[in-house]
């Protein structure tokens, strides 16, 4: 039995020693450490990587431009990452580790609303300001969090513009928007459900009819059932949201099943690169985006949207078109820089107030936070894929090509 006691005691000691790690302070030497629990593996890994690269690019540009000036001294930025495996419980645990064991006092957000929902309570409890760029759920901002800030537009706006466009089409023909028949397919995860809620709200506003309302399992990559119904019931607009995987599957199966609906709107087109992989089928797709590289906004650090785009691509040559997830990630880091300099201090409460007061134009768009922490200065943009695979901005119904008529 002594052996057992010894083994157990050794285990306990090993636990303490091996996991001790280096206790990082919020500022080490001349480096400010930002913490981030991000999805490097698991189902969000694709976009987790886009996000991480966005963070890294911004850190690089800011450091090269002289870093962050606080108290007359220049500091570099660095990010400490942990892989949350796309698991909320793990994310919360890692957030606590970042804050408690690693001493981090400034957080960059994770990828996806689900992860942010799990981590936000942690940073809130510790009073650690978190600027997040990838959690768009409206419900994050009704919880009364004081330390959570998001640079992106909230999720219910993603596809509601598509419904507006469908209504505009009816009105143009002097018909009632309530005639529109909507087919929807959403993946069963918190983000897509939020997008759906926004769509449903708009539908109710116009009095439209929902003829298909499918929830797609998260582990499945097959929409054939939904598309079969679409072909039979002939809706006026088809709305889909299911992260990159959903977009890729949808594009492929719309191609295979030769689906023709006058208006098709789906999220994550760019991230899934549908215009490259299915150039014919993706013609006419309406894709919401948080950001366009032709945006006419600019800032002193990254230049214009196009310049940020070029710089990012130069650093990450595998990208032919850069997803907005990376752009907003860079914007989040930029917010921290501005806030640090405005607060001129490392105190997290002073920083929090500085972030709340931020009002800036960036390559990503305007940023101004509401009381609840979400960005109210930047709208969601809708783009349409043309026959040549290019994205063109759609601001009103007149800008889009309607109806979508593709010969397969």
């Amino acid at each position, binding site marked *: 039995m002594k052996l057992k006691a010894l083994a157990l005691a050794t285990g306990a000691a090993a636990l303490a020693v091996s996991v001790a790690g280096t206790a990082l302070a919020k500022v080490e030497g001349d480096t400010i450490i930002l913490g981030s629990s991000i999805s490097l593996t698991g189902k969000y890994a694709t976009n987790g990587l886009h996000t991480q690269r966005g963070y890294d690019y911004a850190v690089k540009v800011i450091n090269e431009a002289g870093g962050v000036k606080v108290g007359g001294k220049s500091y570099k930025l660095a990010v400490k990452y942990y892989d949350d495996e796309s698991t*909320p419980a793990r994310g*919360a645990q890692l957030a606590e580790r970042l804050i408690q064991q690693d001493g981090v006092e400034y957080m960059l957000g994770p990828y996806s609303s689900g992860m942010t929902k799990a981590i936000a309570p942690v940073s809130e409890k510790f009073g650690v300001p978190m600027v997040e760029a990838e959690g768009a759920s*409206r419900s994050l901002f009704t919880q009364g969090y004081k330390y959570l800030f998001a640079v992106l537009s909230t999720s219910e706006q993603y596809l509601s513009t598509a419904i507006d466009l469908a209504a505009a089409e009816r009105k143009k023909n002097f018909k009632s928007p309530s005639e529109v028949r909507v087919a929807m397919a959403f993946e069963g*995860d918190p983000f897509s459900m939020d997008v759906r809620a926004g769509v449903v709200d708009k539908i109710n506003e116009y009095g439209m009819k929902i003829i298909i309302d499918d929830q797609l399992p998260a582990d499945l990559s097959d929409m054939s059932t939904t598309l079969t119904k679409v072909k039979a019931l002939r809706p006026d607009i088809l709305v889909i949201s299911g992260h990159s995987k959903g977009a890729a599957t949808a594009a492929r199966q719309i191609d295979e099943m030769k689906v023709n609906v006058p208006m098709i709107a789906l999220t994550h087109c760019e991230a899934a690169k549908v215009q490259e992989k299915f150039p014919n089928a993706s013609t006419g797709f309406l894709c919401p985006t948080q950001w366009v590289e032709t945006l006419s906004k600019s800032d002193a650090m990254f230049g214009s949207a196009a310049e940020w785009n070029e710089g990012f691509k130069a650093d990450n040559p595998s990208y032919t078109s850069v997803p907005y997830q990376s752009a907003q990630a860079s914007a989040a880091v930029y917010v921290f820089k501005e806030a640090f300099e405005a607060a001129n201090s490392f105190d997290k409460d002073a920083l929090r107030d500085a972030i709340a007061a931020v009002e800036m134009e960036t390559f990503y768009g305007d940023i101004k936070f509401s009381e609840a922490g979400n960005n109210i200065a930047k709208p969601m943009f809708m783009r349409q894929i043309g026959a040549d695979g290019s994205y063109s901005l759609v601001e009103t119904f007149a800008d889009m090509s309607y109806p979508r008529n593709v010969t397969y």
Partner: protein
Amino acid sequence: MIKKNTLITYAGLGLFGVFGPMIFPDYTLSMAYLWMMVLMASTWDTLGGQMGYNSLGNITFFGVGMYVSAIVQIAFFYDGGVGEYTSAMGAVKPEFTDSEYFYGLFFGIIAAALAALVLSLVLSTFMFGLRGPYFAIGSLGIAVMVAELTITIDYVGGASGISMPLFPGDIEFRSTFFYILCFILTIMAHFLLRWMYSTQFGLAINAIRDDEDKAEAMGIPTLVYKRIGWGVAAVFMGAIGAVAGNMAGFIDKEVAYPIPTFGIFMVAMVLLGGKGTLWGPVLGAIIFHVVKEATWTYLLNLQWIALGLILIVNIVYFQQGLMGWLQTKYPEKFGIVVDDGNSSDKAEA
């Protein structure tokens, strides 16, 4: 009849358990998860190691407990559906008073344990006609099925999940509070199992493992014992699920039913430490947890590879687990008597 060595072990663990969070306050939550793993491994072993029924679906009770507790905690004090508490858009945020939170939590845990128990009894009616691999795959199927069906229920937020009520009190209190809950549940489970193994129950389930047909033939009511075994496991899994839900702060399918991770980890831990022993699962859980935390910190991109390799090496080359190995090497210390004579028996085999 507690031996001196065992007392020392308990004292050591007890001291670690009680003073751990005070000495290493930054690791409180990590240690809470450690006890959770110990509990999962120990309860799994009741059915798996001691009884020979390898279940891959014990995690079902974990998830069901989590959801039931959420329902109780929220629905008690808030009139809308539980799902409204978090789902898309306008998520409501009712204010819970301190006492409402703790009452809710208390009843939530109890409700979770009861719900899990009921579920295990229902499943017992048809699961125990399956043996060996069929029981394993069947229980895995149940876990996947329950997970998929849960997210179609709008009342519990469907696929949007549930945001748990915020813990009143500051963060250190929160970590310590949940740590204590996990620790107490684990202690309860351990001592209950220890007592059960020393009674008729222990003998019966070992008989079932060794040869079920003979056990039945001898008149042992195997179904009763199987039900008891799985029921006990379910109760504790449900309770710890409720606690885990509150620790995570946000519940959805992945949090409640982590089938490919925790569902399999509990088996791996038991195998590492030694199946069918009281301390095997405990040891296995501790080592596994430590190794996992260490690889996560130091081998960031390679942690899963490291884990996979460790699993393979352990299983292929070191199957009897740590306890098994120790028992073979030092049988006297464990009270096992090895019959050294009669080498002529070997020749006859």
